[in-house]
């Protein structure tokens, strides 16, 4: 539902970097999207097609790389994939964990002409 404003922010990032690098066109936008993020891929694509019109990013292909929800345990240091939102460390059963990936929505790179 919030993809409209999220997509606007994404386009801002893309256009800023495109201008900085003197791009005539952005052909591809490589995005990293964590599985724990609430952002919907299809919805971003939908809004992007509308709001990128008449910008250098119009028609750019959106390429999503999905990352799994990975946490690290502060007690024993092990990294593990969080299954069914259970953040308990599978090795030592510790509950002090930190998310390493899976929450992000990032512009990783853009391909320009």
């Amino acid at each position, binding site marked *: 539902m919030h993809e409209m404003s*999220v997509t606007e922010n994404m386009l801002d*990032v893309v256009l800023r*970097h495109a201008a900085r690098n003197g791009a005539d066109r952005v052909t591809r936008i490589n995005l990293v999207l964590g599985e724990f993020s609430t952002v919907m891929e299809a919805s971003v694509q939908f809004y992007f097609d509308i709001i990128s019109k008449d910008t250098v990013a119009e028609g750019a292909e959106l390429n999503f790389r999905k990352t799994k929800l990975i946490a690290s345990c502060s007690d024993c240091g092990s990294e593990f994939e969080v299954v069914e939102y259970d*953040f308990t460390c599978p090795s030592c059963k510790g509950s002090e964990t930190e998310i390493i990936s899976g929450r992000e*929505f*990032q512009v*990783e*790179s853009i391909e320009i002409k």
Partner: protein
Amino acid sequence: MEIEVLEGVFDANEIIAKENRALIEDGGLFMMNLMASPGAGKTSFIMRTIKGLEGKVSVAVIEGDIAGKVDSERIAGAGVPTIQINTGGSCHLEAKQVNTALNRMDLSGVELVIVENVGNLVCPAEFKLGEDLKVMILSVAEGDDKPLKYPLMFSESHVLIVNKIDLIPHTDFDMERLEETVRKMNPHVEIFKLSCRTGEGIECWIDWLEKRIREKQ
């Protein structure tokens, strides 16, 4: 040609959230971001909180709604400074809107700013506002299965308010199951079980909140 960017899409919001934090810190304030689905009892909970803190902590409210000012009028009726943000269709508050509100309000003498987010269990979880505390409400009528459907919200919140506990005898709501699921995703969450209608459990929440505010001061 490929250009490396490595910039988070939420970074722009987070920069303003940090500005909000600075405003809050400089003003000696405590800010609470209140999130819940529509009808969970956000406004009633704010009214109860204002009443419970009366004479102890001075409160101001930033009221976020898609449209209308029904809630802000109700809260202003309780005699606290209130400012309404209409998001005009957007399903969540962003740091920028809160920044504008903080700058427009007269916060002299205020100790606690309560931000009532737009009724929604999905989007508000993604947007930091610069708050000290993220509080979410789940009402009994919504069911105990919600954490697995809206995991980000339940894992991000510092406090879970289970509201409308007076309805439990009329439902299949399983409090133990709820707590077990939530603690797996958020082991340090504080859970308060209460009813804004009957007032049961409110005192416990008020005492805890006041203690947190005083600790910061």
